[in-house]
């Protein structure tokens, strides 16, 4: 399947910043929620000193958590201007605006100088970047020597993906262009990083699918009109969710946490 990269990026921006997505996914947009974010930051050895970059920072959940709970100095970058604005507002509201700042930017051309950061995180985003080799080169470029990158992402054996999950609409759900964990390891290695840890968390993505299905069902019960207004089609959504469940059960789809170090 070939897709126009710009169309994909636009789809992601619209998908990720849309009300329908936030309604169905809740506050945390990635599998495992804040618990898995904490695990990722723990594995990176995040603490009060390091300068951390969050690539595809969304509405700022991870960046704010790293600042509030770990005391890190954080920059967040995201492709969706609406999310950058919301994240900036959230940082101000929590009094973290001296510690965290957000800006608009493309992961394939990150707006920072080489070797600016001690730590870089990229959660549930690499899978939707159309040019993955360029994006991983950029992630690597951000790191100081000895710095560490934490990637948590949907991993999938794309050749075996259920058909319902290969459409453009499924891109925003992180699945259609996800790669097997081994391919991410290769990409990071090619970008000059040394992978030190790979962890499978398929339960986290299974749970997220259940959560989306439950939110959909709750809205169907309580506010069917609202779903219609947002253009969510229940039968079609269920088909996609069932396909995702099948994929997880068959070991085709998972969620993987990867830590890599810059030599």
């Amino acid at each position, binding site marked *: 399947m070939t897709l126009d990269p710009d169309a994909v990026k636009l789809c992601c921006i619209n998908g990720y910043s849309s009300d329908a997505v936030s309604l169905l996914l*809740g506050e945390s947009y990635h599998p495992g929620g804040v*618990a898995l974010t904490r695990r990722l930051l723990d594995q990176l050895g995040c603490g009060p000193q390091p300068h951390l970059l969050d690539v595809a920072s969304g509405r700022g959940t991870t960046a704010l958590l790293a600042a509030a709970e770990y005391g890190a100095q954080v920059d967040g970058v995201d492709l969706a201007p609406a999310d950058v604005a919301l994240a900036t507002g959230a940082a101000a509201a929590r009094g973290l605006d001296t510690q965290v700042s957000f800006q608009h930017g493309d992961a394939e051309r990150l707006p920072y100088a080489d070797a600016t950061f001690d730590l870089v995180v990229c959660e549930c985003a690499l899978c939707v970047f159309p040019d993955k080799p360029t994006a991983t080169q950029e992630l690597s470029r951000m790191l100081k020597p000895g710095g560490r990158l934490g990637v948590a992402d949907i991993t999938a054996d794309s050749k075996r993906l259920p058909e319902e999950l290969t459409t453009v609409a499924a891109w925003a759900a992180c699945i259609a262009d996800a790669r097997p964990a081994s391919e991410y390891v290769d990409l990071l290695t090619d970008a000059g990083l040394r992978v030190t840890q790979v962890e499978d968390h398929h339960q986290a993505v299974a749970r997220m699918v259940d959560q989306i299905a439950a939110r959909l*069902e*709750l809205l169907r019960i*309580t506010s069917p009109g609202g779903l219609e207004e*947002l253009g969510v089609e229940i039968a079609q959504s269920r088909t996609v969710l069932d396909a995702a469940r099948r994929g997880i059960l068959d070991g085709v789809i998972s969620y993987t946490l990867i830590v890599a170090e810059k030599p």
Partner: protein
Amino acid sequence: MRVAHDEVFVELTRSICPVCKVVVDGEVNVRDDQVFLRKRCAQHGEFEARVYGDAQMYLDSMRFNKPGTVPLQFQTEVSAGCPSDCGLCPEHKQHACLGIIEVNTGCNLDCPICFADSGHQADGYSITLDQCANMLNTFVAAEGEPEVVMLSGGEPTIHKDILAMVDLAQQRPISAVNLNTNGIRLASDKRFVTDLGRRNRPGRRVNVYLQFDGLDAETHLAIRGRDLRKIKQRALDNCAEAGLTVTLVAAIEKHVNEHEIGPVIRQGLGHPAVRSIAFQPVTHSGRHVEFDPLTRLTNSDVLHAITEQLPQWFTINDFFPVPCCFPTCRSVTYLITQGHPDDGDFGLVPIPRLLQVEDYLDYVTNRVVPDLAVREALEKLWSASAFIGTDTSDDRLTKVAEALDCADACGVNLPEAVAQITDNAFMIVVQDFQDPYTLNVRQLKKCCVEEIAPDGRLIPFCAYNSVGYREEVRAQMSGVKVDPVVPNARPLQSLLAPTRYGSRTAKP
């Protein structure tokens, strides 16, 4: 050659000999992915019982262990140590979420399974209104404003003063009264049901805790000795008519009615009076049929049965341990439902799928709780005092619903949903009470379900049924000698003789 153990030793604890009730050390071991409690009495030898069917769930549940709350008042002092000083003694780790008053020992049934050893018995006791008032006062002195008191028995509805006892409870700062009944009077005495319904009002709720073990005649005969299906249905319908909420309470025994777990849930979801269901693996104290302690049912078995019998609605992750008591004692889930289960567009959403409950109720590994108000709301819901239909539960459900609402972030506002949510909420509880075989003081010390004894003690329910307190209180109150009850367990058969109430005691 050295040989490896076939089990992992996970805890050292204290228990009792099921025969002579002397306090002994106990070992908790994991073997074949299940959890067993083993102990040895110098006189009666070794005993072992299955206490949790799923070792991973048992170990995972430990992080849901909430620090207890100290009650306003203790009733006894520490002298011999747990479980001999009940209670509550100052070494107890938790206050009473739920107080139980047994108003009598007599019953209009003689069930083959009855932990209270009740029945058509001439030599039992009934408490007086004065005694009931004193027991309620003890509870209020210990708790301040208790959430809920349960009136039980025997069969409390055959006590001539039962309505006056409900009134006594409602005159005190107790938010809800739970009436634990077999439903016979509710089925036949509509005036009584109406009188109860009139007492169910905002701030002073009355909920019926209706014994309901299944839908098959065989189940009724095996557990209750009578086919009560029509009676149960009439009782339910009468409660609905009188505006009373009902909890279906199913005692589940191995090889008897495990297959009824799904049908009971379906029945509950389909009846307008029913707002919650409680499953209890049969407690092997008092009167019960012969059982094998090594294969007895546990909470995790009931949870797995729910997901196996109703896979379209439930997964094992929909249930969370209750943090106020010891987390292996009780698991709960809440549902939001709409319509009748037989309808094509029936809707059912387990609340734990909507938010990460463990982000709020994990007391061991959590560093930062996302929202303390949501935690508090969840704590009240995941507690032994939670009964759907009480104002507290409604209030907490609304709070949780508000946490789910993303009206600020997205176009859809859910005000109507939030208003409706309490009417559509449904609770499922799975509770494994301990018996003389399974008693573990680690759990007992944090027990939050207390028997209020007529002499003013608050005795943890599982200690009351296991250690000999029930027999002691009955002897005191009735003036009749009461034999110490020993479980009717397969390995003990050669030691046992029947008591006159149908339970077993040790041969002299």
